[in-house]
C-alpha cells in the first residue's frame, strides 16, 4: 500500500492529463496558480499547448476557440476570475463547447481573502452568466477525488459538450496530504460525438446531398454543408460536431441560431435551441450524480456537505458514532445539476438535515427547495433543515457539527 504526500493541485493536473487534456490557458491568481504552473510545465511534454494569457477574458476565450479544433481544454481561476469569465461561460454554453473550468474558491466579496478558504461561489457558478442555463459542477473532497473527479469533468464536458466546473478551495488545492496510491481511480473519459471524419461523398441523390450524420439525402443541406451542426433530434440529444480543420464546414455562433448555425429570431427555432441547451443537461442529471451516501438507519440526523467542509463532516460522523450516537452523512461530489434523487434518498427517514458549507448558506437553498417540494407532493411533514455556515476564513470544525447534532 504505497503512499504519496501531495496537494490537490497536483492531483487535478494529473487528472487532466490522464483525461487527455491538451490545451490550457490561464491567468495567475491565488489560490489557483499552482494548476497553471503544472499545466504550462507539463503540456509541452504531451504535444499540448499551455499559455499564460493576458487576462482572464482571453484565457477562457482561447480555450473556447481551441476547443472547436477538437482539443480538450482546461482553465483554472478563482472567484474574481470567474467574474471575468462570466460572459464567455455563456458563450461556451451557447456554442456547446467542451471546457473544464477549475474554480479554486477564495473568500469574497471582491478581492476578499486571496489565501483564505471559502465555498462562496457555489450559486455564482450556477447563475454566473446571462440567461440562467444549466452548467455542471463537481466538488472533490480529497486529494484522490481531485484526480478522479477531474477525469469525470472531462468526460462530462466532452459527452455533453458543455462547460464543467470543478469547485475546490484553497485548502483542497494547497494542503498536503497522504494519499494511498490505490485511491487514484481512473474514470472513463468519453469523447464528444463527431461527424464521421472522412470527406463526405459529393454524390447527390436526385440533386439532393447526403447528410454525413444520417447517411441519408437531406434537402435542407446548403451547398457548402455536409451536415447540420444544430439539428437537435431528439431535443435533449447532444449532436455530433466536426472540429475546425476536419473535412466538414462547421459554424459556431454566440447568437441564437438555426440548424445551420445562422442567426435567427424564428420563435420555434429559438425555443428548440434553448430547450436543447437546458434539457441536454437536466434530462441526464442521473448520469452526472456523484457522491457518497453514508446513511445509518437508526440516525435521526443527516449531515449534507461537500468539498473541504465534508472532511470535517466525515470526522464528526465517525466521532459521533464512536460516542454511541448514530448519525448519517451525505458527501456531494456533484453540486450542479442538483443530484435530486441521491439527496432525497439520503434525506428519507431523517428528522433533521444539517447542511454545512463555508458561506452564508448557498446550497441549503437547493436542499430546502427539493425537500419541501417533495414533502408537499407526498403530503408529509418535512424534516427540519438547519444551516451550519461559516464565512470568517476559518474551516467549519468537527466540533461544530457535533454541537448541532447534540443540540
Amino acid at each position, binding site marked *: 500500500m*504505497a*503512499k*504519496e*504526500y501531495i496537494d490537490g493541485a*497536483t492531483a487535478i*493536473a*494529473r487528472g487532466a*492529463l490522464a483525461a487527455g487534456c491538451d*490545451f490550457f*490557458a490561464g491567468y495567475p491568481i491565488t489560490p489557483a496558480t499552482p494548476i497553471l504552473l503544472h499545466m504550462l510545465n507539463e503540456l*509541452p*511534454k*504531451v*504535444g499540448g*499547448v499551455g499559455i499564460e*494569457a*493576458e*487576462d482572464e477574458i482571453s484565457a477562457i*476565450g*482561447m480555450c*473556447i*476557440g*481551441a476547443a*472547436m*479544433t*477538437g482539443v480538450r*481544454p482546461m482553465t483554472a481561476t478563482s472567484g474574481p476570475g470567474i467574474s471575468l469569465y462570466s*460572459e*464567455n461561460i455563456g*458563450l461556451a454554453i451557447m456554442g456547446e463547447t467542451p471546457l473544464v473550468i477549475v474554480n479554486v474558491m477564495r473568500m469574497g466579496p471582491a478581492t476578499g481573502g486571496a*489565501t483564505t478558504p471559502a465555498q462562496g461561489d457555489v450559486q455564482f457558478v450556477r447563475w454566473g452568466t446571462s440567461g440562467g442555463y444549466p452548467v455542471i459542477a463537481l466538488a472533490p473532497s480529497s486529494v484522490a477525488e481531485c484526480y478522479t473527479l477531474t477525469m469525470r469533468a472531462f468526460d462530462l464536458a466532452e459527452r455533453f459538450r458543455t462547460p464543467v466546473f470543478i469547485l475546490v478551495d484553497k*485548502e483542497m488545492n494547497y*494542503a*498536503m*496530504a*497522504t494519499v*494511498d*496510491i490505490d485511491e487514484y481511480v481512473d474514470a472513463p473519459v468519453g469523447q464528444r460525438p463527431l461527424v464521421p471524419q472522412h470527406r463526405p461523398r459529393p454524390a447527390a441523390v436526385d440533386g439532393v446531398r447526403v447528410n454525413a450524420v444520417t447517411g441519408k439525402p437531406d434537402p435542407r443541406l446548403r*451547398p*457548402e454543408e455536409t451536415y447540420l451542426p444544430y439539428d437537435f433530434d431528439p431535443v435533449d440529444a447532444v449532436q455530433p460536431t466536426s472540429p*475546425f*480543420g*476536419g473535412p*466538414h*464546414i*462547421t*459554424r*459556431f*455562433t*454566440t447568437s441564437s441560431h438555426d440548424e445551420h448555425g*445562422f*442567426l435567427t429570431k424564428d420563435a420555434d427555432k429559438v425555443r428548440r435551441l434553448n430547450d436543447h441547451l437546458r434539457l441536454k443537461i437536466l434530462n441526464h442529471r442521473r448520469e452526472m450524480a456523484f457522491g457518497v451516501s453514508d446513511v445509518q438507519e437508526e440516525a435521526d440526523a443527516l449531515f449534507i456537505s461537500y468539498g473541504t467542509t465534508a*472532511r*470535517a463532516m*466525515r*470526522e464528526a460522523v465517525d466521532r459521533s458514532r464512536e460516542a454511541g450516537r448514530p448519525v448519517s452523512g451525505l458527501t456531494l461530489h456533484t453540486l450542479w445539476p442538483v443530484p435530486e434523487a441521491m439527496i432525497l434518498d439520503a434525506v428519507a427517514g431523517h428528522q433533521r438535515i444539517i447542511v454545512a458549507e463555508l458561506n452564508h448558506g448557498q446550497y441549503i437553498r437547493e436542499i430546502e427547495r427539493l425537500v419541501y417540494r417533495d414533502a408537499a407532493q407526498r403530503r408529509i411533514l418535512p424534516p427540519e433543515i438547519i444551516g451550519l455556515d461559516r464565512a470568517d476564513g*476559518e*474551516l467549519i*470544525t*468537527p466540533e461544530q457539527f457535533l454541537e448541532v447534532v447534540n443540540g
Partner: protein
Amino acid sequence: MAVAPIQIEEPRKTYKNERPFPFCPGCGHTLILNHLDKALTKLQIDPTQTVIVSDIGCVGLSDQYFTTNAFHGLHGRSITYATGIKLANPDLNVIVFIGDGGTGIGGAHLINAARRNVGLTVLVFNNFNFGMTGGEHSVTTPHGAITATTRHGNPEWPLDICATAGVNGAGYVYRGTSFDKDLPDRMAEAIQYDGFALLDIWELCTAYFVPNNDFGRKEMLGLVDTLGLETGLLHHRQVRDYAHRMRELAVDLAGKPTLPLKPIEVKYPNNVAGKFHLVLAGSAGAKVRSAAKLAGYAGVMSGLWVTQRDDYPTTVKTGHSISEIIFSPEEIRYTGVSRPEALALISEDGLKKSGRYLANMTGDDILFTIPQFADVPTKARKIILDPKAAGVRITRTNLALLLMAAALRELNLFPIAALEEAVRRFQTRFADQNLPVIAASEHLISNS
C-alpha cells in the same frame, strides 16, 4: 496497392454563399468582403482549413456569407478565440473580422496578439463609429466628429491602430480604404504571411457617420492627410508565427514523463497512537513550510497519515507563516488544528498568530521555542532551545528546521533518521546544509 487517381476539383469561382450581404446601401462592409472573396479565390484556399472569426457589431454578421468555417464570438474577444484556434491547430488559416468598436474594447488582445506574432489575419472594418447600436463614437472617431455620443463634437483623439500594432511587434501592418484596388492582393499576402497581420481598412458607415459628418469618399481620403498618417504597407518583417514557434520550442520536451507518481515506502516505525497536532509558527520567507513538509515526508516514511495546512499573508517574504501538521495512524479527514500537542514558535510574526494555540494548550502539551519567547504565557510545558548552543551557524532560514528537528527528537513520534532521509530524498540540493542542522538539534535538546 493501386494508386488512387488524383481528383481534380474545379477551381472555385467564389467563397461567398448565395445569401446576399445584409448591409445598408453604400456600406463599406460589402466592398471589403467582396475584396476578401477575391483574395480567397486568388489563393484557392481550402475552406475546411480556414476559419473566419467575427466580432460583434455589423461586422459580426459577416462570417455567415462565406463557405468556410465560422466562429462568431463576443464583443472585442474575437482575437482571443482566433488565438486559441491557431495555437491548437497552427496549420489553419484564421481570419478575424473586427470593427473599430471591437478594437477598442478588445485592445489588450490586439496588442498581445501583435506582440506574440500569432499567425492571424486581422481585418479591421474601421468606419469611425458603432454602426449597429446607433452611431456612437469609437476609439477611431476623429476629433470633433459628430456622433450619437458626441453631439457637440468628439472631444477625444483617435487611436492609431497601425502604429499600436506595429510598435508592439506585429509583422505585417497595412492601412488603406475599402476603395483600394490592391486590397485583394494585400489580403491574400496577409493570409499567406506567417506572423501577425493586420489590415486597418477605412470605410464609410452610410447609416450614421456619413450623414452626421457630411463625410464621403473624398473626406475620408482627406482625413488620412489631416491626421498626418501614412497608408499602404507600413510593416513587413520576417517573423515566425507564435503557434508554430511554441511547438518548435517544445520538441525537446516531447515524451518526457508528466507529474509521475512519487511513492513513499514505509521504512521506519512510529509511536503515534491517535491524531498528533504539531504547529510550526514563524515568518514568511524563513523556510517554515519547507521544514514542515520535510516532517510530513518523514511521517509518511514512518507509516503515518499526514496533512499539512499552511497559513500566510498574500505577500511572499514578509509577515507570518504557520504550518499545521497532523500525524495519525489513520486517514485524516479534518485538517484544521485548534489545540496542538506541540507548538514550535520561532519568530515574532509566528507569535502574533499563535494566541489561539497558546490559549488552548494545556500542561500535557509542549511549547518549543527560543529564549526570546521564554516568558510567553501558556499552560503548556516549555522547552527553551538556544540556537547559539547548536554548534553550527543558525540563520533566519534554517532556524525552522532546527526547531522542527529538536521537537521531533523530543516528541519521538518516529526516528529522526526519517527526517534525515526526507532531506536527502526530497531536498537533495540543500542536503549538505540541512543535515548538519538536524544533527545539531540533538545537542540542543540534550542541553535544554
